[in-house]
């Protein structure tokens, strides 16, 4: 891109080429407003979708009274939560207690800003014309695009952590320490599987990542499936969704970190959780399934991108509900084992295999041979790691008093 760009704080959107005037501000505000409204409505529909689908899977009816097919049930619940009494525990830290729900909610909103939800990538670079202004169908396209997702998901940890601490009660505190340990642990696997995508795309900008995947060049097969599987598992843990929902585990823990929250503040946590599910599904679609990419089957240029994007989004939302209906909850030690001993080494090893494939191509070596050698090296390392783990477990069994205090 050689054109003169506006103040780069705003990102790389062609909208800002040639300065920012009133029209550009209005178009941006429109995009922000649409994204905001879309997320709120989508959360409402997602909660209904999840309850309806899971009741189908469990052979019951589910919400059915409010509106057709019970579609307004969430609205009714939301209004009820609004008017409930707002309790603040006596021993809580009032300032932080009030701040924590927003620390969960705001990152959930902001992540969606970097997701390209539409645009024509078949030959184009995703530009569409809004009221005569060329722009991308995403709120912002910062040069660090996808790193913003990582940054915001690490900020979201604060909401959980501070909510538990500020409640002034032991159980939410313990639950929040557990929850933040889970989120921090899986962030590493999330970042490493993301690195595989960045290696292939060569850019951090979400628009570029999607452009690279046009039309069928999806990262799902460009990175050979494994990074997406790791990413999906890590995201499920990051979202605290089943089977990794031991953060709140209603049947065992009351409510985990938000035990002391009620009324609208609880609703904000709930909203943030479902909004995160939607935004993270959108991120997976962007990173691995080509975002709005797909063969153009409509005559209107911009419509097919939107349809493809939403079809893929609903696929992942369905998957998350499906997982919840199917899988039993993990135990805490299984959770940590899976994250640290399997997902992190696997994604790191896969990154090296992909890198060896690229380097072999650059140097003119035999690519297949390079990959086979690399896979053999990785298998040897994995065997060593497995042996070390087995030896450690054996020693623990012999001497339960030894090891970690």
């Amino acid at each position, binding site marked *: 891109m050689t054109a003169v760009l506006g103040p780069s704080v705003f990102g790389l959107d062609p909208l800002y080429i040639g300065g920012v005037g009133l029209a550009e501000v209005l178009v941006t505000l429109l995009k922000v407003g649409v994204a905001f409204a879309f997320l709120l409505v989508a959360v409402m529909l997602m909660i209904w979708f999840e309850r309806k689908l899971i009741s189908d899977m469990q052979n019951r009816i589910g919400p059915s009274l409010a509106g057709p097919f019970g579609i307004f049930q969430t609205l009714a619940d939301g209004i009820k939560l609004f008017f409930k009494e707002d309790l603040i525990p006596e021993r809580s830290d009032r300032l932080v207690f009030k701040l924590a729900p927003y620390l969960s909610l705001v990152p959930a909103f902001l992540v969606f800003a970097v997701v390209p939800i539409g645009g024509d990538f078949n030959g184009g670079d995703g530009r569409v014309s809004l009221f005569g202004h060329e722009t991308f169908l995403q709120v912002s396209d910062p040069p660090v695009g996808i790193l913003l997702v990582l940054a915001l998901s690490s900020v979201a940890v604060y909401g959980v952590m501070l909510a538990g*601490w500020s409640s002034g009660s032991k159980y939410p505190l313990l639950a929040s320490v557990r929850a933040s340990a889970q989120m921090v642990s899986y962030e590493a696997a999330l970042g490493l599987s993301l690195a595989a995508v960045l290696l292939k795309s060569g850019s951090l900008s979400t628009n*570029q990542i999607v452009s690279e995947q046009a039309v069928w060049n999806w990262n799902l097969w460009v990175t050979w499936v494994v990074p997406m599987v790791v990413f999906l598992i890590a995201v499920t843990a990051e979202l605290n969704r089943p089977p990794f929902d031991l953060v709140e585990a209603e049947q065992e823990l009351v409510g985990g970190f938000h035990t002391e929250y009620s009324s609208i503040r609880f609703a904000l946590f709930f909203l943030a959780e479902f909004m995160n599910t939607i935004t993270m599904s959108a991120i997976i679609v962007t990173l691995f399934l080509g975002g709005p990419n797909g063969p153009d089957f409509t005559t209107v240029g911009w419509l097919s991108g939107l349809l493809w994007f939403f079809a893929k989004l609903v696929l992942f939302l369905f998957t998350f509900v499906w997982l919840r209906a199917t899988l039993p909850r993990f135990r805490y030690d299984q959770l940590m084992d899976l994250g640290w001993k399997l997902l992190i080494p696997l994604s790191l090893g896969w990154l090296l295999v992909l890198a060896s494939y690229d380097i072999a191509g650059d140097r003119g070596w035999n690519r297949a041979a390079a990959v086979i050698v690399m896979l053999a090296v990785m298998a040897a390392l994995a065997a060593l790691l497995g042996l070390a783990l087995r030896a450690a477990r054996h020693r623990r069994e012999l001497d339960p008093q030894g090891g970690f205090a």
Partner: protein
Amino acid sequence: METAIFIVCAAIVLAGALGVVLVRNPVHAALSLVGTLFGMAVLFLNLEAHFLAAVQIIVYAGAIVVLFLFVIMLLGVDRLEDLSVEPIAGQRVLAAVVGLGTFGLAAAVLATSDIGLPTQPALTGPITDQYSNLRQIADVLFTDYVYAFEATAALLTISVVGAVVMSRRMARDDQARQSAQDD
């Protein structure tokens, strides 16, 4: 525009820094530190160092301060402490001397250098290509400074292994302690 952003962010950074020092509750102090880090991140953005800004949030706000909070919460030091007693004698005087000294050095550099007040976007030279921000850092890191980079990586690994070894309580030590108590 750049000046306006700078003024707002500098105010946030300073307010956060003062908060860290002046607020009595350790958790509030840690949160003020997060405010400072966010202000710094926006200042980096203002200098077109996008990657640094993102890393600032991911590493400092997302990992290091979270670690601080873990320690504060788990050790239970989040009760109000009596700040009138100095744990180390002469600490405040020393802190004042070091602080004023650092400020004096920075002021002296600004006063004597021929750059004057910042008029360029960044002192290391402007970034020519939007996308190359990350590429430039990677280029330097993996060519000119590759040994320093590898040495840092080794140092971090060694410190992690060291921490694990030190946090291990050996069974033999326990038995020794037990028998010492019995005697």
